[in-house]
């Protein structure tokens, strides 16, 4: 009995050896395929710079239709988490006068808000303090979008207030053309 088992084992080993030598298959060859998509944001077809312009008449009052005026940016996307930032210059006479008459102003602060990207809307309020105004750029708090996103963005302006001097004068705006620039920026990051 044990002799037969021994013979069987030998036969099995011999067969295994024969099979191995008859089909010498090399191991599968693996080739990694790789690539990298860089983090990118786009403001779509727009540049992200929005111009607010108006003409102040002789009565020194802002056109009421400026309040709530909206701008739409289309086709924004970021392929990674992103940050949206708003910055703006005050609404200022353009060109500015060299000397602002006493009791008048050539600057108005306002608030602009961007809705449609981050869960907390990005916004900025200009903070000019001189009736003469300046070219200062005011920046709002960056707001996070934690996922890749495509969207259209609605930017609204409002709460226009004439910059009043320290003596309390300056409620009336000098007549003429006025403009402000709002800048929207989208950058990858978190």
């Amino acid at each position, binding site marked *: 009995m044990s002799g037969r088992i021994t013979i069987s084992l030998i036969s099995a080993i011999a067969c295994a050896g024969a099979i191995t030598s*008859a089909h010498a298959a090399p191991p*599968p060859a693996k080739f990694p395929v*790789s690539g990298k998509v860089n983090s990118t944001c786009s403001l779509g077809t727009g540049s992200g710079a929005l111009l607010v312009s108006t003409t102040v008449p002789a009565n020194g009052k802002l056109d009421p239709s400026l309040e709530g005026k909206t701008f739409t940016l289309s086709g924004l996307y970021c392929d990674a988490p992103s940050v949206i930032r708003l910055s703006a210059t005050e609404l200022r006479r353009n060109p500015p006068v060299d000397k602002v008459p006493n009791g008048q102003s050539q600057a108005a602060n306002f608030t602009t808000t961007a809705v449609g990207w981050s869960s907390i809307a990005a916004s900025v309020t200009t903070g000019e303090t001189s009736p003469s105004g300046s070219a200062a750029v005011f920046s709002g708090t960056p707001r996070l979008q934690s996922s890749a996103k495509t969207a259209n963005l609605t930017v609204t302006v409002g709460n226009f207030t004439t910059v009043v001097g320290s003596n309390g004068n300056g409620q009336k705006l000098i007549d003429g053309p006025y403009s402000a620039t709002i800048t929207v920026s989208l950058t990858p990051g978190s």
Partner: protein
Amino acid sequence: MKKLLLAAVALSAFATPALADPQASWNVTGTVAAQCGAIAGNDADLAFGSLNINASDGTLAANGSKSTTSQDVYCNGGSSTISVAATPMTNQTNTSAEDSNFTGTINYTTDVNFAGSHFGVGATQSLGAKAGTLVVTASNLTANNSKRPYAGDYQGTVTVTLTPGV
């Protein structure tokens, strides 16, 4: 009678050596085992690097093709087969699920050129006895469902298996 006896003896003397002439033959045999030469994989050959993206909308742009270094390979069996498998490139750093706009999967076309014969993805394709150069090419990168690819590092794998057969 005596003459007849002598003739018979003489005849038998001639006949006996012819019947006893021996002949032998030997078969000369051998076996050539069916086998295929090994293919060397290479980590760097199919690396596309930074992929081109259409800046206006974030979709994947054309990215050309990448090929492995040519290497000499053979299979000596008439029933040898080749199997080619490929996994899509998937995002290794951002595993977010595919949504309505973005995807973490990039597909590509695989071609294995073995001595002038081309093989795409498929199991147990007839190869036969063949010897020559083998080159693997990945091309035509496309984001899954034509969506925008998430930012991140992508990786897939092409696997080539040669199976010898007699």
